[in-house]
């Protein structure tokens, strides 16, 4: 069966520090991978998606970047965090039916 791992679960970072969130998927090959951000108790905003190694599409202009160095690895990064980058970040993968399977999420607080 397929599983998705996302870490860390929580992170407190000072303004101006770098960021690296990692997501890996097991049990499937060539998945579509996504990074979403969620405001408290609200819907999800798509940040990045990837259909293959090295292929990244950005949905919204922002202070973040994404990379896919391996087929089942997706990384969300920032060189210098802003206060507005605080939020709940979710990694997800989909198969052909577009049904999404999410990681446990990372609560990022920029202080």
């Amino acid at each position, binding site marked *: 069966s397929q599983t998705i791992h*996302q870490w860390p*679960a929580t992170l407190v970072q000072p303004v101006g520090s770098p960021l690296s969130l990692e997501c890996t998927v097991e049990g499937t090959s060539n998945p*579509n991978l*996504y990074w979403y951000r969620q405001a408290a*108790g*609200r*819907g*999800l*905003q*798509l940040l990045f*998606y990837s*259909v293959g190694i090295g292929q990244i*599409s950005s*949905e919204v202009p922002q202070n973040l970047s994404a990379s896919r160095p391996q087929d089942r690895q997706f990384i969300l990064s920032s060189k210098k965090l802003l206060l507005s980058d605080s939020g709940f970040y*979710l990694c*997800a993968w*989909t*198969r*052909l*039916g*577009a*049904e*999404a*399977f*999410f*990681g*446990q*999420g990372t*609560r990022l607080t920029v202080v």
Partner: protein
Amino acid sequence: TQLLEQSPQFLSIQEGENLTVYCNSSSVFSSLQWYRQEPGEGPVLLVTVVTGGEVKKLKRLTFQFGDARKDSSLHITAAQPGDTGLYLCAGAKNAGGTSYGKLTFGQGTILTVHP
């Protein structure tokens, strides 16, 4: 921009009551999904509806996809405290092709069921 309007945003009811959550759009979706999310965790898929007019039942939950595939509803019968959570609808434009499985999410409905 494809928008999914989800209502109500908040719902607070007593155990045993029935409720309906709505998800509406002016766009046609190839499929529509419902997720449930608990605090601090990722959303979990409940159901996918694909065919216009389709009705799916999952125990006390009934999901319906509109005939024109622009809207959907989630009905819960005899709600229980364990149903408490954030419910999200999400539409997929095209499973293949250029949409790459990207989902458009509604704003969510926070359901609280009091014992």
